């Protein structure tokens, strides 16, 4: 944008003017009174002006604030725009994503562009040396990934470790040993750290992206079934191979301190070599060394993951470990308790008591629980979503405790809390609780904990479905406008819930608008949604303007079916849809199109419903055309519908038809009545 000039006027006393007597200049000094934008005004008390006598000009102390305080203050005056897509996308009708798949692929495309640019810069650093950024922006400059030091020395080894080159550093280490130089304990420890963190494999460029994906899949696998999770372990994850470089180097080290043991244990647990980890721990104890809190966390996880033990035994083992931790005077931290709770939640019924004990212990020690803690508790207590057992009321206690609090990220699983909380609200059908959870989400910075795309979609789907179920229709519609599609893209089921809510509240006139909206985000070809819409529109009679609107909507849906026809080999027009569309056309007075629909029935081999045929008959009567009436009867006869007779009788009674037509009708009905009489006679026998 164009440069914006800000003028700042500074008026103050000139020190040169000596002869102006009688006035005291107030303190115009720059005493920093560090006032960050925390919302509370803390201006220090300035000496009050002397009103009596000579007027003193008292200049208040200048306030100071941090760099972004003004921006934050201005940002607090704006809210979210409910019609806009998230800011990361280009705000253009052609470029806004229309489904979650699209939005994910757009964001990935953006990120891959950035990665490609970074790759080019890093592979040709000599072309990107010019730096016009002032002040210097280090992350825009090319990075150097190749180790610079070439000779065989400990400094070279340290450099390779810093650049995270696993294989190169192992080779360097071996070379150093062959050359006879001893490697210092610190460097060996940092080499062990590198190996244990990456499990003796080279880190790939999207290591962290993959890690988070895998851990999520492991989570879900673990939730379902313990054995499945073992399979998941084998499929994903980086397994610890026995006798790999880490163990070899560990064995080669002349002296090992507790850091070395701890690193090895944590690496083994991370890569699922659980038994070895526990064995190494006993070795550590035998050497009379102490483990640190992170190692204990890893050991607790190892104990809980080891298979083939009953929950009670596992719990006793964990208690053993905790007692040893206390004996070694290692203070537990948040991760300790979270790991315990994470393991307990697999124990289902058995785990409830210990979980509450753990929670109370955590409070007693003074460690503030994080959102992940509450997430584990919820998962533990609400695992089985069946109504036969009484549901626990712990969610209410949790929400009462959490309301109004602002959280900061302290555990990788913090972003799973809102999803599980909303799942429980939906299960309990409690709207007040859902509002409480949503209010917590909107407090302060807690919106950051909503998690990745699919979790956000899940949360909002459940929330909105609950709203459709339990809330008044006006409020629901307000939420609809607010949330869709700027916050999440609804699934067909969510929209069907909304339609049913409209049905219950007798607000069917909103349906064409909802159809128009849902076309925008990818529901054009979702058959169940279209069927539901058509069914609701066609079910009852409505005032004429509404009928017209409905008929337009039906025509639109029909065109989507037709375009779908053109693109697929086997057209599928559900019978219900055909029925509904025809009825709507009839009711709005679009008889031409309605008759065309009848033709479609034959084409797609679907049977028209009785109600539909009656309506056609009514319309034929209204337009007084016996030809049409006979058409209908012929159609019914073609499909061999039992209603054919009734229709024929109606025609004969209500219409003025010629003799041939009567005979034709008679033929038709006789055909059907013949078959009837045949069946009668067969029954008689």
């Amino acid at each position, binding site marked *: 944008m164009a440069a914006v000039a800000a003028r700042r006027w500074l008026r103050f006393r000139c020190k040169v003017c000596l002869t102006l007597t009688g006035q005291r200049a107030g303190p115009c000094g720059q005493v920093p009174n560090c006032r960050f934008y925390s919302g509370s005004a803390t201006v220090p008390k300035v000496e009050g002006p002397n009103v009596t006598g000579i007027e003193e000009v008292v200049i*208040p102390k200048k306030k100071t604030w941090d760099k972004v305080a003004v921006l934050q203050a201005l940002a607090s005056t704006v809210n979210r725009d409910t019609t806009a897509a998230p800011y990361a996308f280009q705000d253009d009708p052609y470029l806004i994503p229309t489904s979650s798949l699209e939005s994910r692929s757009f964001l990935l495309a953006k990120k891959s562009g950035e990665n490609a640019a970074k790759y080019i810069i890093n592979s040709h650093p000599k072309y990107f040396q010019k730096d016009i950024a002032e002040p210097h922006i280090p992350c825009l400059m090319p990075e150097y990934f190749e180790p610079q030091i070439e000779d065989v020395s400990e400094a070279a080894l340290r450099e390779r470790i810093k650049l995270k080159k696993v294989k190169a550093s192992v080779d360097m280490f071996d070379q150093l040993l062959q050359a006879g130089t001893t490697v210092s304990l610190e460097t060996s420890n940092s080499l062990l750290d590198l190996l244990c963190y990456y499990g003796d494999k080279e880190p790939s460029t999207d290591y962290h992206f993959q890690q988070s994906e895998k851990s999520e899949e492991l989570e879900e696998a673990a939730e379902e079934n313990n054995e499945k999770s073992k399979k998941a372990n084998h499929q994903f994850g980086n397994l610890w191979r026995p006798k790999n470089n880490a163990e070899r180097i560990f064995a080669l080290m002349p002296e090992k301190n507790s850091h070395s043991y701890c690193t090895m244990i944590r690496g083994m647990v991370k890569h699922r070599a659980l038994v070895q980890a526990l064995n190494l721990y006993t070795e550590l104890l035998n050497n009379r060394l102490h483990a640190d809190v992170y190692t204990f966390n890893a050991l607790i996880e190892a104990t809980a993951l080891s298979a083939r033990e009953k929950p009670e035994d596992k719990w006793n083992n964990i208690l053993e470990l905790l007692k040893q931790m206390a004996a070694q005077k290692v203070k537990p931290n948040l991760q300790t308790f979270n790991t315990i709770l994470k393991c307990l939640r697999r124990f289902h019924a058995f785990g409830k008591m210990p979980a509450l004990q753990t929670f109370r212990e955590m409070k007693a020690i003074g460690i503030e629980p994080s959102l992940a803690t509450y997430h584990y508790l919820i998962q533990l207590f609400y695992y089985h979503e069946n109504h036969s057992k009484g549901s626990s009321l712990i969610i209410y206690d949790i929400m009462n405790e959490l309301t109004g609090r602002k959280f900061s990220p302290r555990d990788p699983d913090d972003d799973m809390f809102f999803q599980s909380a909303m799942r429980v609200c939906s299960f309990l059908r409690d709207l007040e609780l859902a509002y409480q959870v949503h209010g917590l989400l909107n407090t302060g910075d807690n919106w950051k904990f909503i998690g990745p795309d699919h979790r956000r*979609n899940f949360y909002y789907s459940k929330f909105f479905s609950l709203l459709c179920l339990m809330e008044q229709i006006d409020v629901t519609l307000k939420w609809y406008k607010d949330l869709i599609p700027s916050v999440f893209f609804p699934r067909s089921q969510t929209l069907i819930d909304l339609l049913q809510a409209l049905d219950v509240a007798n607000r069917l006139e909103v349906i064409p608008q909802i159809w128009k909206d849902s076309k925008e985000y990818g529901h054009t070809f979702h058959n169940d949604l279209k069927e539901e819409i058509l069914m609701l529109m066609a079910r009852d009679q409505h005032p004429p303007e509404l009928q017209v609107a409905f008929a337009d909507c039906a025509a639109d849906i029909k065109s989507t079916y037709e375009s779908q026809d053109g693109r697929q080999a086997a057209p599928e027009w559900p019978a219900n849809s055909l029925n509904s569309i025809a009825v709507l056309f009839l009711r709005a007075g679009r008889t031409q199109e309605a008759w065309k629909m009848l033709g479609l029935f034959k084409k797609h081999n679907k049977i028209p419903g009785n109600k539909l045929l009656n309506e056609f008959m009514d319309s034929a009567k209204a337009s007084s055309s016996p030809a049409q009436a006979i058409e209908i009867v012929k159609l019914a006869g073609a499909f061999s519908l039992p209603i054919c007779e009734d229709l024929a009788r109606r025609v004969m009674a209500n219409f003025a038809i010629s003799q041939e037509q009567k005979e034709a009708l008679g033929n038709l009905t006789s055909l059907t009545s013949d078959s009837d009489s045949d069946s009668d006679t067969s029954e008689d026998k």
Partner: protein
Amino acid sequence: MAAAALSAWLTLQPGTRTLRAFCTSVSPATRSAIPSPRTAARTSRYERPLRRKALPPRTEKMTVDQDWPSVYPVAAPFKPSAVPLPIRMGYPVKRGVPMAKEGNLELLKIPNFLHLTPVAIKKHCEALKDFCTEWPAALDSDEKCEKHFPIEVDTTDYVSAGPSIRNPKARVVTLRVKLSSLNLDDHAKKKLIKLVGERYCKTTDVLTIKTDRCPLKRQNYDYALYLLTVLYHESWKTEEWEKDKTEADMEEYVWNNSSSEKNILETLLQIKAAEKNLDVNKEELLATKEVEEYKKSVVSLKNEGDNENTLSQYKESVKKLLNLM
């Protein structure tokens, strides 16, 4: 290196394919809506792969009472799909109208202030009140401000979007002061004015010092103050060579010892001599009222220039002096 990047690229692909169970279900029909060479080749029935359709502009969904500062919170280019006004701009063709807002480059080129509606400004001011301190109660009029704070310093900060936050224009400092608030006597004032030359404005009696010779604003500011100090002190000093000030150097016309005085004296003496009034004093002559008036009119004529007033005054005084009335 390339292989690593390529593998990174490929491993990104599985991420897009792994759809969670509770993600939006994607039917095959929507998949084929995204043009891909496979489907186009497979099915010969299609004329061309389906083009992505644009959504309707979101102005249709905006309510009349929406919160406009939320739609345009910051300075942003004009987005026709987000501004619900039927604006037209451009030179129309013959018998036509100016072009509509969609795709209108003219609307994009000009700066727009959609983010600074009066409502938005009011909200901003409310939010910024916290950062302000109170105005001193004693300074409730302009004259008092002048009296207590006679010096005004102007500085300018520049903000722009770009990689660098530095702007060389930001080092300029302008210092303004009224000479009436400085303690100067007549000689000092005249000397100061001579020293500063163009920087003094006679009509407003303001001395403006604009410095930009130093690279930093602070340095320029110190330099400006230094200049003011030096000027003040220097103008109070009197050098010996100032005695050589000639009439051509004078800023304003001074009557005493001027040629006009001499002339009038001579004239009056001649008149008196013609009247045989020989013993008459020069000082007495000069002290008479007519001469005083004449002196005033000449001074004003010389200092203020020719206008109706001064010329008529001169005429009157000459007439009186020469007893022509």
